[in-house]
C-alpha cells in the first residue's frame, strides 16, 4: 500500500529535482540558438540559427555586437587549472600518505588543510590581495597570487579524496613488498601508486574543474584586465549587455567539461591495465 503512494511521489520528486538541476542549462542551450545579431537573450526564439556559435569563432560579418573577449582568458584559465591540478594532486597524495600514520598534531594539521575549502572565497581573495599589495608589495598575477589561492582551495579536495582512497587501501600489500626486499620508495612507485591511481585521477578532476570556474578568489587575487581568468572575463561582459553569444559559449564549455569527464572515464577504465604496465615494464637496473 505504502509504495503505491510513496513511489509516485518519489518519482515526481526526482523529476522535479532533475528539472531544477538541468533546467537552467536547457534554457541556456535553447536560447543559444536564437537568431542573430538582432535576437536577444529571451523567449520567444524568433528564428533558429547557429549565428552566435559562429560569432564566437569570428565566422560572422562584423556587427554592432563585439565578439566575446574570452580567447586569452580561456587560455589563462586552462593553464591555471592545469598548474593547480598538478600541484594540488601532488600535495594531496603526499599529505594523505602522511596521514596514514598518527603523528603529533595530526588533528590540528587536518583542520588547517581543510580550512582552505571552508573559508569563504571572497575573504581568501581579499586577504591575499591585501597581503600582496600592503605587506609583500608584489604585483598580483593569475599565475602567482591567484594560483596560490586556487591551490589553497583545491588542495583540501584532493587531500580528502586521497584520504578516503588510502583509508580503504590494504597496506598488507606494501608490507608484502617490503618483506620481499623492496625499498619503501620503490614500493610506493610500483605497488601503492598503481593501486591508488583511480583515486589520483579523481583528485585531478576535482582540482581542475574547481580551479577552472573559480570566481571569488580570482576576482581579488588575479590582478588587472591582462590577468583575467575565464569566469572573470565572462562576468565582465555581463556588466555591459547580455547577448546569446554568452549562452553559446556556456554550451561549449559544458561540452568541454563532458569531454573531460569522458576522458576521465576512459582513463579510469584503462588505469588498471596502465598501472600494471607501469609497474612491470620499467626494468630496474
Amino acid at each position, binding site marked *: 500500500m505504502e509504495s503505491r503512494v510513496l513511489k509516485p511521489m518519489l518519482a515526481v520528486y526526482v523529476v522535479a529535482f532533475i528539472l531544477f538541476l538541468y533546467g537552467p542549462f536547457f534554457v541556456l542551450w535553447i536560447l543559444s540558438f536564437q537568431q542573430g545579431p538582432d535576437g536577444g537573450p529571451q523567449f520567444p526564439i524568433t528564428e533558429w540559427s547557429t549565428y552566435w556559435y559562429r560569432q564566437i569563432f569570428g565566422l560572422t560579418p562584423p556587427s554592432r555586437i563585439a565578439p566575446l573577449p574570452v580567447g586569452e582568458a580561456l587560455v589563462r584559465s586552462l593553464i591555471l587549472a592545469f598548474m593547480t591540478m598538478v600541484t594540488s594532486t601532488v600535495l594531496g597524495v603526499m599529505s594523505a600518505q602522511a596521514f596514514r600514520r598518527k603523528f603529533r598534531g595530526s588533528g590540528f594539521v587536518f583542520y588547517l588543510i581543510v580550512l582552505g575549502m571552508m573559508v569563504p572565497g571572497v575573504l581568501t581573495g581579499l586577504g591575499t590581495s591585501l597581503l600582496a599589495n600592503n605587506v609583500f608589495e608584489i604585483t598580483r598575477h593569475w599565475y602567482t597570487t591567484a594560483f596560490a589561492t586556487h591551490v589553497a582551495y583545491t588542495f583540501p579536495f584532493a587531500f580528502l579524496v586521497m584520504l578516503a582512497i588510502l583509508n580503504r587501501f*590494504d597496506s*598488507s*600489500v606494501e*608490507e*608484502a*613488498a*617490503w*618483506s*620481499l*626486499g*623492496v*625499498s*619503501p620508495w*620503490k614500493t610506493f612507485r*610500483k*605497488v601503492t601508486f*598503481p*593501486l591508488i591511481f583511480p583515486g589520483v585521477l579523481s583528485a585531478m578532476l576535482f582540482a581542475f574543474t574547481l580551479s577552472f570556474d573559480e570566481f571569488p578568489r580570482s576576482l581579488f587575487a588575479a590582478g588587472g584586465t591582462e590577468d583575467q581568468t575565464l569566469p572573470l572575463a565572462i562576468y565582465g561582459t555581463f556588466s555591459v549587455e547580455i547577448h546569446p553569444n554568452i549562452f553559446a559559449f556556456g554550451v561549449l564549455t559544458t561540452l568541454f567539461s563532458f569531454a573531460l569527464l569522458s576522458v576521465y572515464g576512459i582513463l579510469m577504465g584503462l588505469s*588498471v591495465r596502465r*598501472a*600494471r604496465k607501469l*609497474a*612491470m615494464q620499467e*626494468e*630496474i*637496473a
Partner: protein
Amino acid sequence: MAYDLQLSHIGKVYDNGTPAVIDFNLDVDKGEFIAFLGPSGCGKTTTLRMIAGFETITSGDLLIRGSRINDLLPEKRPTSMIFQNYALFPHMNVRQNIRFGLEVKGMAAAEADRKVDRIIDKLGLTDVATMRPNRLSGGQRQRIALARSLVVEPDILLLDEPLGALDANLRKSIQNELKLLQRELGITFVFVTHAQSEALALSDRIVVMNAGRVEQISPPRELYTRPQSLFVSRFIGANTLIPGVVKDLAGEGVTLDTAFGILTGEKHDRLASGDKASLILPAEAVDILPANVAPEEARKTYGTNMIPCQITRAQLIGHILQMGVQLPNGDVIAVEGHADKYRGQFAAGAQAFVAWQAPRSTVIKH
C-alpha cells in the same frame, strides 16, 4: 652452535602503555618449524610482525644468525612474510607477482626467469602464470604467495595464519604441502595460528602464548601429555583439572589431597607442602576399570589414582568406544579407547572406576 633466530627478552608496549608482548624468549634452530599458538589478542601476530620488522621492538634483542637486527628495516631483513589475506599485488599477473622481488633486487633477467620458472613449476602454477590473482581460488593464491616469498630465498619464512581463509579440506592438503616444502627447502618457518590442529600437525615445536606471555615451548606431543601451566592444560587437548592441596613431595611424584581422596601426579613446578595446586589429567591417560575390578591388582598399577564413576554414555564408532564418564562431583569426562580394550563391558548407567598411572598426569601450582 649458532641459532637461526633468537628472541631474547623481547617486549612490546604500545604507545598508550598497553603491553602486547612480555619477555619473549626463544631460540630457533635452522630448518625448524615453529608455531606460535594462542587465542586472538595473545601477542602471537605482534611477535611475528616484530620479527618481520613491521612493528618496533620496545625491549630485548632480536637476532638472526647471530647478528642483532632490532633496528633493521623490513626490506633489509632476511625474512619474508606470508599474510593471512595473501596480500598479492592485484595489478600484476601471477608471474609478475612472483618475479617482482627478484626484479627490484636487480637480478639479471635470464637468472630471474630461471628462478621464477622453477618455483612456478614446483608449486604447480604453470597453467595460471599469466592470470590475475583475483581470478584464482584461495588455494592457488596461497601457493602464489608462497612462491613469491620463497623465490627471494629468505633465511626465515614467516607465516601469519596462512591457512585461515581456506576451507577445511583445502587446509588439510595445503598443510601437507607446506610441511613437505619446508622439509625439502630446509628453511626455518615461523607459523602463527590459533588452530591447535594446525600447530600440532605441522610444527617441530609449539610456542603457546596467552595475554602477551609465553606459557610453554614444547614439541607437540609433550604439549599434549605434559602441559606446564593451567592455561595450556585448558587450551590444548582435553584435560581434566582436579584441584587440591599438596600433601607430600617425598616420593616419585606429588601427592595431592583432593575431593576424590589422595591422588598422585608428576611434579612440575616448585611445589611446597600445603600449596594449592591442580592435577592435570589428559583424556588419553584415563583408563576405565569395571566396578568389580580386583582392588589389590588395580592398586599395583594405579596406586590411589582411582575414582569411582558412572558411565553416562557409551557409543561404539567402528572399533573406537566413546564414553562419557561422570565423576562424583558431577564433572563429565570424555574418554575414548579401542573397543577390544573394553570388551563391550561398559554400557550407559554402569558403575566403574576412572584410573590413571601417576606419571601420566601432572601437578601444577595455582
